[in-house]
């Protein structure tokens, strides 16, 4: 399984990618929405469209909500599961993200178990992995 981790913090990208590695994902990384779109184009050209994208909300250049909308507008990427991983925890923000096309929402701070549970719920991690 392939994942794309999008966060302007290198520390947070390492943390998220590290958890995904334990769940048998190979992760690519991007530091904002615009570089994420460029990385998706590269992965698409290499026939490695990720099954999952973990997306921060507050980023420079292009934020996570704009990225979700951009991915959802492109039919090539309709099978990518989008999970917001963010500090934006108000109900209204969660609704906005889901309405834009995100599938799941994980609020920082989170634990590795919480992320694994979300991915298991989404069917991206077998029940016996990371349990």
């Amino acid at each position, binding site marked *: 399984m392939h994942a794309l981790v999008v966060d*302007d*913090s*290198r*520390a*947070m990208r*390492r*943390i998220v990618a*590290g958890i995904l590695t334990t769940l048998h994902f190979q992760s690519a990384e991007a530091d904002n929405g615009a570089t994420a779109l460029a990385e998706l184009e590269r992965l698409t050209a290499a026939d490695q469209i990720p099954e999952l994208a973990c997306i921060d909300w*507050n*980023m*420079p250049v292009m934020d996570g909500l704009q990225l979700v909308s951009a991915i959802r507008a492109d039919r090539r990427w309709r099978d990518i599961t989008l999970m917001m991983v*963010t*500090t*934006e*925890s*108000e109900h*209204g923000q969660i609704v906005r993200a889901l309405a834009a096309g995100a599938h799941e929402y994980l609020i*920082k*701070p*989170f*634990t590795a178990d919480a992320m694994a549970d979300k991915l298991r719920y989404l069917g991206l991690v077998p029940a016996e992995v990371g349990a």
Partner: protein
Amino acid sequence: MSVDGEALAELTQAVWESFVDAEIPLVDLYGAPLEVGPDGVVVGTIAIHGPHEGRVNVALPAGAASAAAARMLDIELADVVEADVHDATGELANMIGGNVKAMLEGDHRLGLPSVTVAPTDPYDAVASATLLWGRHTLLITLDRAPGGNS
């Protein structure tokens, strides 16, 4: 406004346990001053805009900031460079600030984090928490911009 020092302490403890150090819990020192080491202090700041105009500031001695960055990036302390400290401290401010924002009444939005290597002049602190991490103290403040509402 429903954010007080106790809330700041609890939020910071949760962030710290998840991403910095799950073994040594942060201890609330209930308002003790920040102890600044010989290398100065690193401050991560994130602005909150809305009915409450202000900032969340995460201040910690430079040694503590480097140690936290090493843990968050999973690298040796000796390999930590300034960019690592800025990245990690900024993300700590972002996570704590985002959770503070959710506790404020009304609609707010976050800015992007910034990091300085000298104390940031506090506007008007409306809540603060001093926490002990091993031998380091951390100071978390929520302040209010001049003329800002609370």
